């Protein structure tokens, strides 16, 4: 299904962006899964979420934060692109 491919692309982009944020923190890599919670598990702060929002907008054309949503987990972030 084409939707499936698209979602996998979105997931890849999301995981890559989150990993880049970690790399730049200099705290090594962290295992990011669909179940990871953005704030509690991944400990993203507002600047990092702001960057994630801008990155997703640039690379995927739209992002949930700009549309007023705050997905709590990576999985829900990915699901946004399936809608």
């Amino acid at each position, binding site marked *: 299904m084409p939707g499936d491919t698209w979602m996998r692309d979105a997931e890849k982009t999301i995981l890559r962006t989150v990993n880049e944020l970690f790399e*730049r923190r200099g705290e090594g890599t962290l295992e990011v899964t669909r179940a990871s919670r953005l704030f509690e598990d991944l400990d993203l702060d*507002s*600047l990092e*979420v*702001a*960057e994630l*929002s*801008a*990155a997703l*907008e*640039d690379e995927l*054309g*739209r992002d949930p*934060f*700009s549309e*007023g949503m705050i997905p709590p987990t990576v999985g829900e972030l990915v699901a946004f692109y399936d809608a």
Partner: protein
Amino acid sequence: MLMSVLREAADEVPDQPALAAVGRSLTYEACLARSESFASGLRQQGIERLGCVLDDPMEVLPLLAGASAAPSEACVYPNTVDASAVDEYAARFQHSWVITDRPMKLENATAVPISDLLADGRARPSDDAERASLLVLTTGTTGHQRAARHDWARLLTGVAQTQVDRVERWLVAYNLNQFGGLQVLLHALATRGTLTFARSNQPRDVIETIRALAVTHASGTPTFWRLFTAALSQDDLQEMGLEQITLGGEAVSQQLLDRLEELFPEARICHIYGATEFGTALSVCDGRSGLPISVLERREGAKVQLRIVDGELHSRSSVRMLGYHGDEPVRDEWIPTGDLVEVRDDRIRFVGRTSEIINVGGAKVHPLPVEEVIAAVDGVELARVYGRPNPITGQLAVAEVVSRPEVDEEQLEKEIRGACEALPRAARPRRIEFVDEIETRGSKLARGSTGARG
């Protein structure tokens, strides 16, 4: 007014070129004759206020001088705009006449071919000419530009009357609608120099003109000079005899001053702090960026006094504009310049403009220091930092970067991010976009936040 200055110069050095471009020039005497003819033509046609759009920059001085004597209030429009923008300017500044050397048809004004203004007879100075004024456009996007009304007599007192022992050949890498360009024109005239023009302000055209006309003095914005240094070849350097380099219209970085010093060790390098609204405050030639704090000690009677109020420079100027077109006249009082500064090491350093502050989740980020950090990274040609709207933090600092040819951009981005680690977190650009060129207006980086894409 301008015509009297031109007349004095033509009396002293009639045969010396006042204006020159590659392959042609106009002597002071010929320039005066043309100006007087324009003055007669403007009077005969009853043109009291005019806009002009001239592709040939050598027509600007004669027309401005003619207008000052008619008297007629002139306003030079940028010659980079098309007919619809000219129409917009004419409507906004209430110009019924637009003098031009282009074939042009306008809706809001009558387009007058400049050749139609050439009238016989030498105009005698009119009594009204003492009150002659000029409109100067501020840099900004079309539709948001304002026009500062200046009084010719006051404007001319702001020009330093320095004695020079030989002819200075000035190259003006501004458009003449800009206050910076006008200042160079007036300086060249006051010192009986020759004002030279390149075909465009593209670095390559300017370099060719400097070489061909043996230009000794050149003036442009820091953005212009940055692009100029990037375009220079060894061959160019050997063929150039620049004695003075002047920068103005934007804040100058230490890095650019050092680079110019390295390329032109013989030249005097000066940066000018001034603005369309308050005139030229000072010229700094000590090789350091920022202003010496001693400028704050200027007493009443100085042409331009400066002081710092809540981190912003305020000016009080006797060579200020009369006021914006369509606005109240400005009084003799302290006025905020919009330039934000910090004092460090006995130096006033520019950090940005009040209108450019990026608010990242409540943290104020000034773009200039960030741009300087990025521009210092090897492989970066030009950088612009601005605020991008963001749903989480309100705005986010982001950067546009022009890389030097054949630079690996992925690697460069890593290096830029590394260099920005020295900045507070909110100031680090969160997106770095590599672009072919950065938008400029009048050879200055186009400023202000831009909307989100889409």
